[in-house]
C-alpha cells in the first residue's frame, strides 16, 4: 500500500503553496494541476522535487486509477 500526500498551504494573503509527497514522475504535476483546475489563479513558480524524476510503474498507476474511479 502506498500513500500519496498533497500538502496545501493557503497563506494569509490568499496565495497557495502545494507540494506532493509520494507521487512519482510527471503525474505529480498533473495531480496538482487537476487540484487547482477550479481555482482561477496563475501559477508563478514550479519546482521539481527528486520524486518527479523517479521511474513510475505504469501498471500500478493504471491499477490505482481504476481503484479510485471505483471509489475504493
Amino acid at each position, binding site marked *: *500500500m*502506498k*500513500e*500519496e*500526500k*498533497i*500538502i*496545501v*498551504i*493557503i*497563506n*494569509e*494573503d*490568499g496565495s*497557495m503553496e502545494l507540494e506532493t509527497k509520494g507521487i512519482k514522475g510527471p503525474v505529480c504535476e498533473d*495531480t496538482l494541476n*487537476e*487540484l487547482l*483546475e*477550479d*481555482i482561477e489563479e496563475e501559477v508563478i513558480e514550479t519546482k521539481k522535487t527528486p520524486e518527479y524524476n523517479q521511474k513510475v510503474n505504469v501498471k*500500478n498507476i493504471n*491499477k*490505482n486509477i481504476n*481503484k*479510485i474511479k471505483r*471509489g475504493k
Partner: protein
Amino acid sequence: MSHITKTKTPFIDKKLLIKALDKLNINYSLEGENIITDRKDFYGYQKFILINGKYLFQHDSSATNSSYGWSGYYGSNWQKQFGDWKSVSEFIKAVTIEYSNQYKILQERIKELERLAEEKKIKEELERLRKEQEEIERKRLELIDNNKKLIKEKAKKMGYKVKETVKNGKVKMVLVRRTY
C-alpha cells in the same frame, strides 16, 4: 541727532475696531460706516470716520493731550464719560493695543480652525482607509474560504481525504490517499 516716529496701527477693519471698543467697554453707536463714541469734547461726540479705507478719529484738536476740562463741560463724573482714557492720545493708544490684540485673536483662531480642519481631514482619511482595509480583509477571507472549499471538493473527487489545520493565519490542508 536722530528722530523716530511711529504711527499707530491703521484701523482698516470695522469689525475689529468694534470688537476692540467692546473689549474696552466703550459705548458707541453706528451711523452708516462711522462709529460714534459717547466721548464728548467741545465740538461734540468724538467719532471714528471712514476716510480712504481707514478709520480716523475725529475730535477737537485741543482734546488730543488735554486730560482736563471736558468733565467740567459735560458732567463731573469724567470716568463715566471717558473711561480710563481722558485724553484722546491715551484713548487712541488703548484702542490701538486692543485692535492689534483682536487681530492676533483672529489670527490665532484661524490657526486653531486650520488645525482642527486638518485633524478632521486626517480623521476622514483614516476612516476611508479603514473602510478600504475592511473591504480588502472581507474579500481576502472570502477568497481563502472559497479556495478551501474548491480544494476540498476537488480532493474528494480525486479520492483524497482532507485534514485541515490553521496556524499563524495560514491554512494547512493535508490531502491523503492510499493506493495499492
